[in-house]
Structure formats: C-alpha cells, structure tokens
C-alpha cells in the first residue's frame, strides 16, 4: 500500500507539471484559489474568455481532452494520466468548468454515435474550447424522469422538425452546439419513442432564455424550439433508440473519477482556525470542534475513496462502485457547512456580497448549494442508483412503463 507514482506515472507527472508551470495563466491563480462554490471572481477579466484561452493553449500543445483519441483532438492518454493531469492542473482546472458538459457528455456521445465525418469536423473544436456544447435533455415535465420529455421531432423530407421546450440547460446561452433528446413517437411506451440529435444552437427557431436562479445568478437556461429543422444526418443512433443513446451520455456524466467534489470543508476549517467567537477562538470551542471533526472525516473519506478508484485505474482495473457516493455526500455537506459558517457569524451572517465576512464566500456558497443537490441527478436519484446498482435492490415499480406515452396522465389533480 503506497501513494507513489509508477516510473511512467512519475514521468508523465513531471512533463505535465513543467508544461503547466510554463503556460498556465498565473495572474489568475490567487483568484481561482480563493473561489468556492457559488463564487468564482476573476478581477479585471471575463472568466469565459480566460477559460477559452487556457483551453486553446492546452489543445495547441496536446493537453486537451487527454482521454480522447488524437484524431478527435485528444491525447490518447490512459485514465490514470487524466487523473494525474487534473491533480497537476490544480486551481486552473476550475477554468474547465464551462467545458464539462461538452467534454464529459456531448463528446463521448458523439464519439459513440455520430458519423465519422461529423466526428472529425465537430470534435476537435469542442476539445479546444473554440466551440462550446450543451446538453438538452431535461424538460418542465421530465427532470428526474427524463424519459417523460415532450419535445416533438417530426420527419419532414430529409429533415426533422422540432417543437417544444427544454429547461435547466447549463451554458446554453454561450453554447454553439447541443445534443438534443426528442420524442419521435408518442404512441409507444415512453422509453421507446425517443430519438437523439445534435444541432447548431444558432439554427432558426432556437430561443435561449436564461433562468434567474434562487441564488440570483444565471447558469441555466430555458431553450425553446419553434419549427427548428435538423437534417437527418445529425441524428445520433437509430430512430426510437434515443433512450439507450442518452444512457451513454449519463454514464459519462457520473463516471468522472478524480474530479474534485467541493465539500466546503477546507474553507470552513481555515475560517474556524482564525475566527474569534465571543468566548475565545472558534477552534477551541467544543461544539465547533465536534462539527468540524464530523465534516473532516466525510471530506477525508471522499478523498480516500477517490484514491482507491485512482489506484484501480493505475493498475488498469475498473474502479468499483464506491465512487458513486461522491456527489451525494458532498452536495448536502456543502450546504450544511455554509449554513454553519453563517451561524458562527451571528446576526452579521445575514450580510452578503463584498461587505460580508470573507467577501461573502459562505453566503454565496449557501445560496448556490441547493442546486448541487439537484443538478446531474437529485440526492434521491443518487440514492436509488446506489440502492439498485450497487446493493442490488429492486427497481421502482413504474406504473407508466408499458403504457403508450400519450395515455400517461399529465396532472396529479383534476
């Protein structure tokens, strides 16, 4: 048992570290280190532009989308090399956040289902960040129940005509392309009538409206489709096979290993280490210490769970299911951590923004936190996944499974 790199891993790490040392945008390092959930501020710079510039720089030197094949803009690296890169990229990795959906979900879906010429055309600029992609799955009538979506695609000659509405689409307002899950046959059970496409977000009839979130910020959007035409050659997978195609996308979303999940603990521990309460230093207060200890072991438990998965990758094995706990644990934890940090501030905790303690770090965290427990699978969906796929418990009884989609009730009352 050890934490040492193999000789090849050490060599890769040294190469990556040297390149990052020479090329990363260091002027933003301090700002990135100080950022936390809900609050990433780069002084005197537009984060989107900084992120795109960093991604392009990486791509030009062969450091973008490490695990993708070279012909599609990647490096053809092993999974463990990808993890080592993430470790070395450190705070600059936060600049990749706007590419996560494109690189982690859209790209792999295109790789598995797009025509070869499309892969060669679309994937390299996706890898280099020149083009940004979004994923158009969720709808007002289908969040956790994605297969309940209603956006229609109807064949018209060589095109498909799209009408409907998507919601919670991250980054749609700055995306160039998207992958789109639609209903092509409402007369069969819901999982069987779906078809996947990719489309140009500048197509006529696409309208993006940012959603003002509970936090006040706008990361997500509603996207409306009015008679949007998509050529049939942009279909991904067979007609009616969209559910299986989307599973590929979602599996990729949840399999990101080594990607640091934010727990808020390092921020809280640092804060408590210097905070003075009415009766003395916070870190010497019994109640504070007990809270900190409980969160400390969750944070370290997640860290070493991830190390176990990385070790499996290092040996060329498939990691076990234990990594599936990450989002579930971190999501509610960061919410609790933020709540507690404000509790320690007393009445002053109510002040947010630049005038607040630590320029409002924990206030911003508190307001952003509810979203982390919902996006990418709610806590409840994550528990279902653990219960069913890891523990082998029965799936939910799905009363709409064998019913034609257009016969499923649409309202709970009246």
């Amino acid at each position: 048992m050890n934490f040492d790199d193999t000789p090849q891993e050490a060599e890769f790490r040294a190469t990556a570290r040297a390149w990052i040392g020479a090329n990363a945008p260091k002027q933003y390092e301090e700002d990135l280190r100080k950022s936390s959930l809900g609050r990433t501020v780069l002084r005197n710079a537009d984060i989107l532009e900084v992120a795109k510039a960093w991604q392009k720089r990486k791509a030009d030197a062969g450091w973008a989308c490490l695990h993708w094949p070279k012909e599609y803009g990647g490096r053809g690296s092993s999974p463990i090399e990808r993890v080592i890169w993430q470790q070395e990229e450190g705070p600059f990795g936060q600049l990749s956040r706007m590419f996560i959906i494109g690189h982690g979900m859209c790209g792999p879906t295109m790789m598995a289902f797009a025509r070869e010429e499309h892969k060669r055309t679309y994937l390299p600029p996706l890898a280099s960040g020149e083009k940004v992609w979004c994923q158009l799955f969720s709808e007002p009538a289908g969040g956790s129940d994605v297969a309940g979506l209603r956006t229609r695609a109807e064949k018209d000659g060589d095109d498909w005509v799209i009408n409907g509405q998507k919601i919670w689409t991250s980054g749609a307002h700055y995306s160039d392309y998207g992958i789109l899950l639609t209903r092509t046959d409402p007369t069969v059970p819901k999982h069987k009538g779906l078809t996947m496409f990719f489309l140009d977000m500048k197509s006529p009839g696409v309208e993006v409206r940012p959603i003002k979130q509970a936090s006040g910020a706008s990361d997500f959007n509603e996207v409306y489709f009015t008679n949007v035409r998509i050529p049939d050659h942009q279909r991904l997978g067979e007609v009616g096979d969209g559910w299986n195609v989307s599973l590929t996308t979602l599996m990729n979303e949840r399999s990101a290993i080594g990607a640091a999940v934010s727990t808020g603990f390092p921020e809280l521990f640092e804060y408590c280490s210097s905070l003075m309460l009415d009766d003395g230093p916070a870190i010497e207060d019994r109640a504070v210490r007990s809270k900190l200890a409980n969160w400390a072991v969750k944070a370290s438990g997640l860290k070493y769970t991830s190390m176990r998965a990385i070790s499996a990758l290092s040996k060329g094995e498939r990691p076990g299911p234990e990594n599936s706990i990450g989002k579930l644990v971190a999501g509610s934890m960061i919410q609790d951590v933020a709540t507690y940090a404000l509790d320690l501030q007393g009445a002053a905790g109510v002040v947010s923004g630049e005038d607040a303690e630590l320029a409002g770090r924990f206030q911003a965290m508190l307001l952003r936190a509810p979203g982390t427990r919902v996006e990418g699978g709610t806590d409840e969906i994550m528990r279902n996944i653990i219960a069913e796929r890891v523990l082998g418990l029965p799936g939910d009884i799905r009363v709409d499974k064998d019913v034609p989609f257009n016969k499923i009730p649409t309202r709970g009352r009246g």
Partner: protein
Amino acid sequence: MNFDFSDDQKQLRDQARKFLTEKCSPKAVRVVLDGKTPYDKELWKGLAEMGFLGVAIPEEFGGAGAGHLELCVIAEEMGRANAPVPFSSTVYLAAEALLIAGSDAQKKKWLPAIASGEAIGTLALFEGKGNPAPKNVKLTAANGVLNGVKKPVPDGAIADFAVVAARTGSSGRDGDISLFLVDLKAGGVEVKSLTNLDPTRGQAEITFKDAKAEPLGVAGEGWSILTEVLDRAAVLCAFEQVGGADRALEMGRDYALDRIAFGRQIGSFQAIKHMLADMYVSATLARSNSYYGAWALSTNAAELPEAAAAARISATQAFQHCAKNNIQVHGGMGFTWEFDCHMYYRRANAMALGLGSLTYWEDQLIDRMRKKNAA
C-alpha cells in the same frame, strides 16, 4: 499509486473469512452471548493455529512476522463474524504495548504466549467514567506494587496479564504516568466480572492491592506510549468496525430482498432503499478512512495520529449507523433475541466506547489537524 491491499493480503482476508464462516457462525457466537462460556476457547485455539494471533508479531518472538496490513484484513473479518474472543484486547492493546515499549525479556515472555494462544492480555486504563487522560489515572505505583481499581477492563476476567496505567508522580503533567505489567494470576489482584452491553466480549473490574508489577517502558513515558497504543488500536478496531458495518448492511439488504409486505419486496420501497443507500455511504467513507489509517500504521508515518482519529470516528459512526438501521429494516423481528441484529448493535455500541468516546476522538482529531497545519 497503489492505495489498496496486495493480492496476498486479499487472499489472507479470504482465508480468514472462510475460516471464520466455518468456526464462528452466529450459532457459535450465541454460546458466549447466552453466558455459557466467557469466550470461545476452540475458536481462540484455531486462530492461534492459523497464525492469526501473531500475524504482526515478529518471528523472533514466535509470530508470523507479517505486518499490520495483514492484521488489518484479519481484523475486518473478526468484526464481520462478531467473533467472541479477546482478540482486540490481547492483540491490538497488550501485544502492541509490548511491541512499542517492552524489554527483550518481556517480549520473550509474553509475545510467543500470545501468538500461540496460551496467554490472554489486556490494557487496564480506565477508572470509571471519563476518557483517556492523565488526570483520570488515580491508581498508584510505588515500590514495585500497584494500588487502585480499574474499570472497565476489556476481557479482564479471562486475561492472564495486563498492561496497567499507573500514577507515579503528581506534577500534573503527562510525565506522571507510567506503565506496568502485571500477572493477573498472582496475588494482590481481585477480578470481578461486569455485565455489559456486549456479552460476547467481557468487561471486568480489577482491584489491585499491593499487586506486584514490573515497569513497562521508561518511567514517566507511560502516557506517550499509551497514546501510540491507542492510535494503533484505533486503526485496528476501525477495521473490525468496518467489517461489522458491512455485515449489518448485508443483513439489512438481504432481509429487504426476502421480506414481502403490501404485496412487494420491502426493498422496492424508497424509504428502505434510501436508508440502505445511506448505510452504504457511511460504510464506504469508513472503509476509505480506515485504509488511510492502515497505510499510516504500516509505514509508521507521521500522519498516524490524524489518520487514526479519522478512521476511529468514521468507523464508529458507520458501524453504529449500519447496526441500528439493520434492526429498523428488519422491523419487529429485528428486535427479537432470536434474530442476530442485536449482536451487531451491541458490538457497535460497545466498540464506540472502548478506546474512549466519539467526543474524545473528535477532540483529538481537531488537535492533531491543528498541529499538522502549524507544522
């Protein structure tokens, strides 16, 4: 990076599981639970024959000379089987104290006897309520004899010898405490069995009246030795707790799959599924923290104090969480003597206290994290 046990160590774990499945069935555990014998003597003998008792004891002292990682995988299986033997007191506490501080003669006398199953050892630290702290040690040592009362002493009623923490000074500092070895079968020792939460592991009150004792380690260094013994034991106990938590989770899962109510498997209800998913989360966090503790223990790393405290807290929480919710999944049947759920509930709650309470270890963890940050 290779943050995992080796194939050989995993094989040893499989071997231990197979052995314990055969020799330590719930039925065998119940013989001790029902008070028919204080511990499973046959199993103890078998563990010695398998080489498990001395797995981390060097060959020159009669052990297998493997190491602490090997001991960790065996500990996990002991916890999973809820083994009714004085393994933790003898192997994690007494043997580790001897390995850290024993003279050559002391090691030669006791370690081979531990490895062969002939001697049961324990640590006599607590004196009533309270957590490990020098000020709580009142028993005195003077002129080669001990006077005072220790309680609770794990496996005290069946132990042949004890490592005893005693007061040898009154300066109010850690240096007031020294350790001693006492032959419990000699004069001046009175032992009284205590009923306790977990009858599969005894607790005793031991009264020392001018009991003969020999020093273990340098006088005045007792507290620093004890601290290291408790850290090592925290990691090893954490593996027992992880084994117990996993078993409790499996029992709950299996019952949820078998039991039908309202016309369906109860494991198909989200209330049950989510409870079991949360148990899996606790057990996984505990396992990962314990692995880190195992790494620190086996490499004698400077990180051991922090790693041990984290493993201790995480594993204690996980075992308690899984054991209590295993009963909940079972419903009324889980609350019967006949079902095995309560054995794990008892063990989980007894283990949560044995090396000092959760609150104590939380406090330790924060102290140690601060020390590391300051360094």
